[in-house]
């Protein structure tokens, strides 16, 4: 069943169709919220909020503008930005060195992406570094490298040209690389060193 039909059935009050939408998108949207906020409780609340918003505005979805999943990503992204602005003052700046775990204390070898070593700690460290990025770079990087969206789709979600999308993603990755370089145990896995 295509998205247009699914949405049409949802709007006609078909509970099973809506359940299918929720089932197919919950994990992806929860991951998006979690990667952006770095907090599970916040991500959970935000995911619920996203679905509420989708539920209320489903009749504004236009299948010609793209897949339902991309449209829902846009709804989620707008909510995340609203949330970010609303909670900006409440957030306290945590120094990176305090926030990131030092992997070398637990791992004797150098962790590499291709080795499944201390996965949870690597994930926590990368996640911490990610939340240090500015929101416009963070959202672009998450949508590309974690959510796996195409550049064209990201352009639809963020409502900016594709060139700007690429630029933001690259800048985000470079910022992240700088942050991660400071972490012990995150040496360049390919032996490429800056001159």
């Amino acid at each position, binding site marked *: 069943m295509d998205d247009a039909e699914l949405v049409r059935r949802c709007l006609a009050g078909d509970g099973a169709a809506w359940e299918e939408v929720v089932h197919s998108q919950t994990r992806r949207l929860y991951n998006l919220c979690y990667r952006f906020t770095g907090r599970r409780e916040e991500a959970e609340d935000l*995911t619920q909020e996203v679905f509420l918003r989708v539920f209320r505005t489903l009749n504004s979805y236009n299948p010609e503008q793209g897949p339902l999943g991309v449209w829902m990503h846009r709804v989620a992204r707008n909510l995340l930005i609203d949330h970010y602005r609303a909670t900006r003052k409440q957030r306290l700046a945590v120094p990176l060195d305090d926030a990131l775990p030092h992997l070398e204390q637990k791992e004797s070898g150098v962790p590499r992406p291709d080795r499944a070593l201390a996965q949870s700690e690597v994930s926590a460290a990368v996640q911490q570094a990610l939340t240090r990025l500015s929101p416009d770079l963070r959202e672009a990087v998450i949508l590309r490298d974690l959510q796996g969206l195409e550049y064209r789709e990201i352009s639809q979600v963020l409502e900016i040209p594709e060139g700007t999308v690429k630029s933001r993603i690259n800048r985000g*990755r470079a910022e*992240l*690389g700088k942050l991660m370089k400071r972490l012990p145990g995150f040496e360049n896995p390919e032996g490429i060193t800056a001159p």
Partner: protein
Amino acid sequence: MRTRRESPRHELGERLQDYLEGGLAAAEQAAAEAHIRTCARCAEWAEARHATRWLRQLQPVETPPGLETRILALTVAPPPQESFWAVLELGWRMLLQPRFALGLAAALFSLALVLNAMNVSTADVRVADLNPVNLYRAVNRQAQQGYARGVRFVNDLWLVYEIRSRLEEMAPTSEQPPASSPSGNPNQSTPKQEKKPENSSDRARPQWLLACQGFGGLGELR
């Protein structure tokens, strides 16, 4: 910051995206790495590529248990676009609610009682009676008749009759000017003397006392 913005166009150009995401062919990859080793401006792309690899290594996090259920409980199902018939059906279903139906029945029963008391028969009602003008006339007629009946009823009350007759008896006295009046008009004094000569002793008494006597004498009259 400025350098970083310009660097994508430097040497790597359009291949930067593929380099960062590991999409270059082996030879191109080797050439890009060789360039990065020697170029200060492109050095940061090595770190960026490194970060990208780490990012893509991250596994999706599991959703908290029960999240889907909570979402479904919050939303149930999108509200159906309500048509005229759907609204009508909703109204009909509301009508069938026991509480509403009982309330309606009680209201109709009360209305029937009132109509019955007013001698309104629903059997006599015709379409023409529903014309606003006819309706107004009927209501007006009912109101006038009701008022007349009320007046007649009050007038027919024995107590009222007594009070009125007593007051009528007293009426000449009240119309008479005070005895001490210097007025010498013969037209005023003459009819009084003709009308109630036997009540002349009462004239001196105050009217309220006479009224009391009247009420006190009701028992005798009965």
